[in-house]
């Protein structure tokens, strides 16, 4: 069964990581390198165990475009999110024997290194959701 681990972040989080002047907390180069190393070795373990399916990171919400219907016509809006709004920042799809195993993999992310004060007020979380693999599953 496939499970998607969803990671979230706001424009403010992205700005802090990208070292934007005035963004808090200021991530140093070492902070960024530590995070990249952590994520790489976390995923490498999943690849090694043969449970990795796909992993993608998304660019900052400011690069997003929303297409919505306005008066029956599609209208495009650039970067429609508020600074602090949490949006999907990336995902990892794993193929595991059980939901518990997928959750176990996701829980290791709780040790993600970050500079002090980088965690937003809402605390830290990721979501794990089973992937609907076929028509039967999605209609069940």
């Amino acid at each position, binding site marked *: 069964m496939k499970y998607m681990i969803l990671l979230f972040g706001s424009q403010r989080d992205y700005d802090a*990581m*990208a*070292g*934007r*002047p005035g963004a808090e907390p200021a991530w*140093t*180069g*070492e902070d*960024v*390198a530590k995070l*990249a190393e952590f*994520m*790489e070795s976390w995923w490498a373990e999943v690849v090694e165990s043969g449970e*990795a*399916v*796909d992993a993608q990171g998304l*660019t900052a919400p*400011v*690069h997003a475009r929303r297409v919505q219907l306005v008066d029956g016509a599609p209208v495009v809006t650039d970067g429609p999110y508020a600074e602090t709004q949490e949006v999907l920042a990336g995902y990892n799809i794993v193929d595991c024997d059980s939901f518990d195993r997928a959750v176990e993999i996701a829980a290791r992310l709780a040790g993600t290194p970050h500079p002090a004060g980088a965690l937003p007020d809402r605390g830290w979380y990721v979501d794990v959701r089973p992937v609907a693999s076929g028509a039967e599953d999605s209609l069940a």
Partner: protein
Amino acid sequence: MLPAEIEDLLRREAPRVLGALVRRYGHFDLAEDAVQEALLAAATRWPAEGVPERPRGWLLTVASRRLTDLLRAESARRRREDTIARRVLPDERLAPAADRAPADTDDTLVLLFLCCHPALTPAGQIALTLRAVGGLSTAEIARAFLVPEATMTRRISRAKQRIAASGIPFAPPDRTEYAGRLGAVLRVLYLIFNEGYASTAGPRLARTELTGEAIRLTRLVHRLLPADGEVAGLLALMLLTDARRPARTGPAGELVPMAEQDRSRWDAEAIAEGIALVTAALPRGPTGPYQLQAAIAAVHDEAGCAADTDWPQILALYEVLLRVDGSPVVRLNHAVAVAMVRGPRAGLDALDALDAQVRLGDHRPDAVRGHLLELAGELPAARERYLAAAARATSLPHQRYLHARARRLPGPDEPGTQA
């Protein structure tokens, strides 16, 4: 022979054996499976039993036998399925062309022409080249491009199917299309190098396995076509660019611009080889874009420090390059050279002219504009451009570099001195 030497030998022979097999029997897809099995047999047996006297002959015999088995199974299956549409082998349909290469031509080159055939998509060309000519496993290629193995498997089999379906012959291109086909091969090699060097994905700036493989394959083509100036030019360009890699990132993986790089960390051996290659190729003419870019890279690499860079010569080379390649990236670099020779104002004017005609759609024009405004002393404006460039950049190292440049400059409300 050590296992590593055997592996080198196998990787060198793999494209030759595959090429010879496809030339004799057609069936690229099955031939590739047969060669993979022959390589596997060699990899398991040679370390223990010793390398045979004629390794290529051994591989060819084993692979031919395996291919015969596969073809037999295939034709039995086809009969069972009562397939009416029987495929005619290209060799049977066409008489050999008059200028067909003699049999002793290295089949590696013909294999490269096949893998980089214009009928394939660029992604397919790249994947097939790395697999069939480079001898990398599908898993290795998938890892290098940061895509799941299943995706890469599909990409490779789609490319193979397209070759089978379109009946592209396994033969060197004729004289009329030779230059274009070689151009496609060089473009694929350049894309592989660039994917490794400029790394469009992931937090890391360079993926050395791809640059290394691109250089190895280009070296191979250069050995096969030593008189071709553009092949030599591309190899020189790769060597001269890759030579700076050790100095291109700081301790935490941050981007270090060329002007601030510690040049003692550049690879002197690669620079010497690249300069020798381009120096030998240039007078032979005609001068193509790869030679010109290599010549520009050579001028940069020859300077002992950034201030010693011979910018007038670089500008002259860009003027020539513009005549054969007027792409936005070349024009952007030309504008930088103009600024370094005639001052930042002249460079900014060149940028204005560029902006009016083309849009690159990425962070580079803003980054260059920021740099030139900084040189011109317009610090708040420069800061604004750096921030705009950072907002457009999608890679974290680029964003962090541009933000760091902006942070050193005063904002619009604080027209003080430079920090």
